[in-house]
């Protein structure tokens, strides 16, 4: 890994980028940067400002809030967007459980990117809606 062509190939099949044609995928590949995290590395830190928006190319990570594992993330999953959109520190750690390759966009660049790519924003909104539905269902089941 990874030239821009290789990044564009890697993200082409992902749900969040599913509506983008090749030139737009190349644009994404040139705006995001690739990052690598060894196993056990913290990618996102609960309570720490200044994070970014990550999309997993390869590997696996756990979402850990207050020491409790909340979810497992893998290829095609994304994280960090809630913190960036709200301008608040993340409410969970994201920790690599296997060597993890991501593409990442720094927080300040996220708004401009989403405005330039409304179909990515729509896909992100869909994913957020699914997560909200899941959270509501869990809340209802626990009552």
């Amino acid at each position, binding site marked *: 890994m990874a030239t821009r062509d290789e990044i564009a190939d890697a993200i082409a099949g992902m749900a969040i980028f599913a509506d983008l044609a090749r030139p737009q995928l190349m644009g994404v590949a040139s705006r995001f940067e690739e990052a*690598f995290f060894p196993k056990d590395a913290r990618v996102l830190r609960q309570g720490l400002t200044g994070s970014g928006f990550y999309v997993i190319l390869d590997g696996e990570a756990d979402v850990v809030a207050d020491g409790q594992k909340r979810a497992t993330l893998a290829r095609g999953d994304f994280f960090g967007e809630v913190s960036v959109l709200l301008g608040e520190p993340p409410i969970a750690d994201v920790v690599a459980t296997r060597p993890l390759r991501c593409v990442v966009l*720094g927080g300040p660049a996220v708004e401009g990117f989403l405005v330039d790519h409304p179909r990515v924003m729509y896909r992100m909104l869909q994913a957020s809606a699914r997560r909200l539905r899941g959270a509501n269902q869990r809340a209802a089941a626990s009552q």
Partner: protein
Amino acid sequence: MVDERPFPPGEYPVVVVGSGPGALQTSYFLSRYGIDHATISADPSAGGMFRKWPFFQRLLSWTKPYAAGADRQSRAFQRWDWNSLLAREPELRGLQAEFMDGTSDFPSRPEMEANLAAFAERAGVQVRYGCTWESTRREETADGDRFTLVTSDGEYRCRFAIFAVGVSEPYSPATPGIELAVHYADTRDAPSYAGHRLFIIGKQNSGFELATGLLQWASRISLSSPSPAKTSIETHSLVGVRARYVQPFEDSILGGGVDILSASTKGIERTPAGGFLVKLERSDNAMPMTLEADEVIAATGFTCPLRDLPALGVATFGQSKLPAQTDFWESATVPGIFFAGTITQGAAGLKKHGIPPNSGALHGYRYNARVLVDHLAETYFGAVHERPAIAEGDVRDHLLAEATRAPELWHQKAFLASVVSLDGSAGIRNEGIVPLTRFLDAGDGDAIAMTVESDGTTIFPVVYVRRGGRQEEHALEPDPLNDFEGPTYRRALGQILDRAVPGASAA
């Protein structure tokens, strides 16, 4: 007496590969700890990339000889001197200012090369030049791995290998017809471009350096890459085109014979007239466009010449094929292999607000080298750092002075931290400069870390407090003069510290 061919092949605890500033700085600190090591380089002399580049012979990194009261031996001066290597001996510090002719605060390339050669000579940094690292073997032993570096002079066996080989291998994308382009590394003398139409692939500093230098020679210059170019003034960091190279922007905006395009280069073809037809795809509407040029230059960057290290298991990432690294610049996947110099940009730290540290530049990686050697010396070679005691009532002013003046914090924002430990038995101790991720992820015991950070708009100090296993982050306000030692800051930091260091605000 200088040994012209020091370090014959054999067994050494540490082998350093390279003779650019990163290797010189690393070898210097290893020597000052008395750690036996060999430094080998394929080059014929010290300087690394500064023996050849920048092509137009003037650096992007400043040295202001009369800053900090012109006390060039002071720690404070380092903040204004991006080009000198670090030294324990006062007479070896701030050497760059000695080699500047007063025409610019950006040294010329020969002035930089002279600075580095003088440091190597005066500090007694020895290098076995003309010794090319060719391949690497790893061997497992009961006492950890050993590495064998096969070179043009023979084999070097070591426990730790530190590669400071730069990001120096020309890279060109797989664009059809790219072989018709000349890479930045092979740019000719400026007058040979007189009257030519130039097409430059890439809108990073190297592309704009060429565009700036060739403005007076070329008949027209077009630069293109898929994303819009941003300047360092817009990003508030060294990410982006440096202000030294903004003239092509103005020429473009005023319609003065420079085109700055956001487009992908889809192909390069020869024309019957002997020029080139460049096929582009616009980023804004995906429409094709073409332009004719007499010369095509690929200012498309460089990769790390890591040779067979990836086959040994060294994970790399990104277009520059940087090795993935730990907090202490060790390969994240092959322990025992370390990196120094500009390659240390592969350890990006927290990259808060999307802003990386300056590890790609000398004024960043010189501190990485010092922290790396401190770490190696203490972890593996029995050295014990001095950790001076700090009186309870002095903690606040010490931290604010660090935020205001420490060159490590200013050059390596949100990456290197000045740390004070509060361990009960040892008292309050100055732990010195520590990678911030190390403090956050691997530290234990109560402690405070001070950093300087930027959110892409302003610069401000940030205090990290670790107490009873919990961590807190407190950003202080920015100051228009970047002076964080006034009463407002004493009050603000005192309130934060009072919970961790009960007497901190009593002074």
